[in-house]
């Protein structure tokens, strides 16, 4: 749990993997998911790396798998998920897998090709039969005789040699969308020396490749002359028509038709046989494919990781660099030892110093994951920065609940989340693919807390579906008021509004034990009372939240060893925030505690006091809250304003001072160093790699030398302006708590008044009311869930998110890090 507060210590580790054991080591690391490999060959292009041949082989195999998968999908089968944990296979197994899949793929290809050919043949036969059948129909016969009767005289006119000229036929089928173009082209190219008749096929045929039903146009072209015939054949070829022999005698056609039917029957039998064999082969594919895919995927991942390693000068081992959590180092060592034992040489890992910022690693469990997710969505924390997630666990649901305060709505949300939490281990729930559902499911613990806190704030606001509950007796007594002021019947009849005066004894007995007194829900000034309360509450919560954020900054400064910032940044910031807005909170609470109903007429106004505080003025009509108030206020304002220059100039001046001091100290040292360097020239290589600390120190100095005063000053100026203006605007921003809780209360009030109250007031008879209430309650329930729970819930969630990201986290959180993404097979295993 300690790791929640800041990210874990992560070290750069150098792994020496003996060439023989490198594969097993990396595959073991992939199973464990401990380390993130750094690419040591970034400058080498993809195809020049060491294991590119193996990667290519894996890819080759994956291609075959894709083919098999595609075939399985086409057969309408579903691949079962692989069973059990499958480790990456040893490299020598690749050959076996490859051989098996290749054989299977070849077999499948053959069978599929056979099936394809048979189907095409069948299709052809069916088309042919269809064309012949169409030829029977009287329309064509009519066209035929018609043509003959018209043309006969023309043909006979030249006489002699053309006497025996016969009409020839071309029959075939074409896709419907090509038919018009074909018809036009035929007409143009042959100048009308033909008669073409197109008809659509009644029933669609199965497409031989896709298996989808497709309609066809059959055509019958009658023409004269061989030249035209050749042209027609060319044209039909170019439109990819199926052309069939067409016999002129009807009996011959019938005979052919019968023959065709017989053929197609035989063909269908053969096709059935082929399909049975195909399903056998597919069955074998189903067995082989899922584990094979996982294994090869892992293998490829291993080789890709190995590609990131560099080769040692002796070629005996591979050198990898990886980020690894310090806590996992023993596990890493053990894993390496175990997996390299067989080869006799052991792989070793040792820490090396590093100047790059390590990645951020924060371990989460299923409860904290969603809260960490909220923080990470803004930005992954810098390495070892204070992590706001643990505080978010409480503050986020709480701020949400302030805006969503209603016992009923909270309870519904809580129950929904509870159902998800209780069912979280069921496989059906886990496997659900719906994206929206997954979003809710991932945030189930967040929803649970949000619901719980909403119930609490609902009790504070005393609202359950906008109705007040009176668990305890109210603190106000109407009876006492009526008795003491002697309201007559006439007075009561005339006045619909009556005032309860807390100054009359017995009317106000004391504050309600918990939350808002239910009597306020009857009062006409209900809203103004609640507004005042919620507004002040928002400011108080806001100032506390922001001050907490500033305080969290302290842990950052201490951890990163920037103690000067404690004094020069955190202190002025806290003084500024608390001196101005903390004082406002003090005024609010002081007035709640010390100003009573008896003095209500002359109660001081906090607003006027606060404005006067900045103007250093005094309004005589506004009574002081406490003696010497003006002196205290003036001191606070001066103090707060005095903090602005400290904040603005403190850090830059400190840095400059330190920098200059170091510069003054260095020249002497530098010269000596140079001298030493010249003298020790032969040992330069040793010196250059002497101690890493010294090296790091030297680099640090260089960094300091790059300190640009204007840049530092500019940065600090921006920070100062942002903070000081931010204090004002952020405090105002917290008023959204008030606004949204008001909106929520009013919306639920309206829903109750406009729907349920009308329904309840409808019929006095039990039967009528019962019948009418069914649809009305249904409407009420649906609208409650849709508008108040979902819509309002989302908007409150959004505003709570904003308050955390902007108002809270900008006080201390930079979020400029990057996540540790370990090399792991986990995604493949799922």
């Amino acid at each position: 749990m300690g790791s929640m507060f800041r990210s874990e210590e992560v070290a750069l580790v150098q792994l020496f993997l003996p060439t023989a054991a490198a594969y097993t080591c990396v595959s073991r690391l992939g199973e464990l998911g401990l380390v993130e490999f750094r690419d040591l060959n970034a400058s080498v292009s993809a195809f020049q790396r060491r294991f590119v041949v193996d990667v290519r082989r894996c890819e080759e195999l994956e291609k075959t798998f894709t083919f098999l998968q595609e075939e399985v999908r086409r057969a309408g089968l579903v691949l079962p998920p692989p069973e059990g944990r499958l480790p990456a296979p040893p490299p020598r197994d690749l050959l076996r897998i490859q051989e098996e899949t290749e054989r299977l793929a070849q077999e499948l290809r053959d069978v599929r090709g056979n099936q394809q050919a048979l189907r095409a043949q069948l299709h052809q036969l069916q088309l042919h039969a269809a064309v012949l059948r169409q030829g029977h129909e009287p329309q064509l016969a009519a066209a035929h005789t018609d043509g003959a009767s018209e043309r006969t005289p023309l043909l006979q006119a030249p006489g002699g040699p053309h006497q025996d000229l016969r009409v020839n036929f071309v029959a075939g089928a074409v896709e419907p969308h090509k038919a018009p173009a074909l018809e036009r082209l035929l007409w143009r190219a042959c100048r009308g020396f033909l008669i073409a008749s197109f008809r659509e096929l009644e029933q669609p045929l199965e497409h031989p490749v896709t298996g989808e039903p497709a309609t066809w146009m059959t055509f019958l072209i009658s023409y004269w002359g061989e030249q035209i015939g050749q042209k027609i054949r060319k044209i039909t070829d170019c439109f990819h028509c199926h052309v069939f022999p067409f016999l002129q005698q009807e009996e011959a056609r019938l005979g052919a038709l019968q023959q065709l039917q017989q053929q197609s029957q035989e063909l269908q039998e053969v096709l059935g046989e082929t399909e049975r064999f195909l399903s056998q082969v597919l069955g074998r594919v189903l067995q082989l494919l899922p584990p094979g895919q996982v294994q090869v995927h892992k293998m490829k991942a291993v080789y890709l990781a190995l590609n990131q390693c560099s080769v040692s000068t002796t070629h005996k081992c591979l050198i990898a660099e990886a980020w690894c959590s310090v806590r996992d180092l023993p596990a890493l060592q053990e894993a390496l030892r175990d997996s390299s034992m067989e080869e006799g040489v052991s792989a070793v890992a040792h820490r090396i110093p590093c100047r790059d910022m390590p990645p951020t690693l924060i371990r989460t469990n299923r409860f904290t994951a969603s809260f960490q997710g909220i923080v990470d969505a803004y930005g992954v924390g810098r390495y070892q920065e204070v992590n706001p997630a643990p505080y978010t666990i409480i503050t986020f649901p709480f701020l949400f609940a302030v805006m969503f305060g209603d016992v009923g709505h909270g309870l519904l949300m809580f129950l929904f989340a509870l159902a998800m939490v209780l069912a979280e281990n069921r496989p059906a729930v886990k496997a659900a693919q719906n994206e929206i559902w997954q979003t809710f499911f991932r945030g189930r613990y967040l929803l649970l807390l949000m619901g719980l806190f909403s119930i609490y704030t609902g009790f504070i606001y005393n609202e359950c579906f906008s109705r007040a509950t009176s668990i305890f007796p109210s603190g106000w007594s109407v009876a006492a008021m009526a008795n003491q002021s002697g309201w007559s019947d006439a007075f009561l009849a005339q006045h619909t509004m009556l005032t309860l005066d807390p100054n009359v004894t017995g009317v106000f007995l004391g504050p309600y034990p918990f939350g808002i007194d239910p009597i306020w829900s009857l009062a006409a000034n209900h809203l103004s009372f609640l507004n005042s309360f919620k507004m002040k509450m928002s400011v108080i919560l806001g100032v506390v939240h922001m001050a907490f954020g500033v305080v969290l900054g302290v842990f950052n400064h201490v951890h990163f060893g920037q103690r000067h910032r404690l004094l020069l940044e955190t202190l002025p910031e806290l003084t500024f925030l608390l001196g101005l807005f903390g004082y406002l909170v003090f005024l609010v609470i002081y007035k709640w505690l010390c100003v009573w109903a008896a003095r209500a007429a002359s109660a001081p106004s906090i607003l006027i006091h606060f404005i006067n505080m900045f103007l250093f003025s005094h309004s005589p009509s506004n009574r002081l809250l406490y003696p010497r108030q003006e002196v205290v206020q003036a001191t606070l304002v001066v103090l707060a304003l005095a903090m602005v220059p400290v904040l603005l100039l403190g850090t830059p001046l400190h840095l400059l001072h330190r920098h200059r001091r170091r510069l003054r100290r260095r020249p002497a040292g530098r010269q000596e160093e140079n001298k030493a360097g010249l003298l020790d020239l032969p040992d330069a290589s040793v010196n250059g790699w002497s101690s890493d600390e010294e090296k790091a120190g030297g680099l640090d100095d260089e960094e300091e030398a790059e300190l640009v005063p204007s840049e530092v000053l500019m940065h600090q100026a921006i920070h100062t302006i942002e903070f000081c203006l931010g204090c004002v605007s952020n405090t105002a921003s917290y008023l959204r708590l008030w606004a949204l809780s008001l909106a929520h209360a009013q919306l639920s009030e309206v829903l109750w008044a406009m729907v349920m109250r009308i329904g309840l007031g409808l019929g006095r008879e039990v039967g009528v009311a019962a019948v009418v209430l069914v649809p009305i309650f249904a409407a009420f329930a649906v609208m409650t869930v849709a508008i108040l729970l979902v819509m309002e819930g989302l908007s409150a969630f959004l505003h709570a998110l904003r308050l955390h990201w902007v108002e809270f986290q900008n006080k201390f959180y930079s979020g400029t890090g990057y996540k540790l993404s370990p090399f792991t097979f986990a995604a493949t295993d799922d």
Partner: protein
Amino acid sequence: MLEGAELYFNVDHGYLEGLVRGCKASLLTQQDYINLVQCETLEDLKIHLQTTDYGNFLANHTNPLTVSKIDTEMRKRLCGEFEYFRNHSLEPLSTFLTYMTCSYMIDNVILLMNGALQKKSVKEILGKCHPLGRFTEMEAVNIAETPSDLFNAILIETPLAPFFQDCMSENALDELNIELLRNKLYKSYLEAFYKFCKNHGDVTAEVMCPILEFEADRRAFIITLNSFGTELSKEDRETLYPTFGKLYPEGLRLLAQAEDFDQMKNVADHYGVYKPLLEAVGGSGGKTLEDVFYEREVQMNVLAFNRQFHYGVFYAYVKLKEQEIRNIVWIAECISQRHRTKINSYIPIL
């Protein structure tokens, strides 16, 4: 057309323009070419292309990988993109895109006719046709025996029909006639396209007209160069030149009289644009006239992307992509033929 394309251009064509600019960004960079040139085998080339925007376009081919497969796949990709543009385009952009396909259609028709003349099977030649210039009636081209046959039967319904007015003749189609037909078609096509761009006005005209003028001049030079030592008469030659461009009219008349390369060069000397180009021929690296023109074309096309709100980007993108395909094919050829000395003479796209 109204002036001020920026006011309304994006209503109709903004999406496609954005898309085409995005596509342009995926052209291979200089670094990619450097890596490609280092490849040892076509498989290496494929692996490297996978790291670019080409992605897995070669993933599903069956071994072995050949240059023509790469070429076909790349063309298919380009064609897919172009089809997408075309299907989503509105007038007048769709007309513009149709004009763009016309040149490929002309090439395909001529290719098919040549094939028919040499009695090659249609299937074989279809494979060589550019997918951008594909149309349904294309395969029927070989039934035509004269140009007017060709026009009346086949091309009358295609966008090529208007370009045919000048080439109606009853001459039998032999090799020379087909070449003449191609050049005449091209001439009227370029003139029509030029007129279209000019009439469209606005930035489109400002960008496209220089590109088309260059195209016309290039054709004039190439026709002149190819006609040396053939039976083509000088008058006939002059009728093949597109009648616009920087060379029109004086330069064309001079070109028509040219008898060898040096005389052609003399003509080009009168023009500031073409003088350096023709001087570069045969110089360092043994560049051919074609290479020089390609380089110049690439330059102009890249510059087209500097202006906004015009159709020229579509033209420029397709041309650049084609150049890229030519480059990759060149490199792939050099690799597969182990002829590495010339591998660097691809045309860099800046």
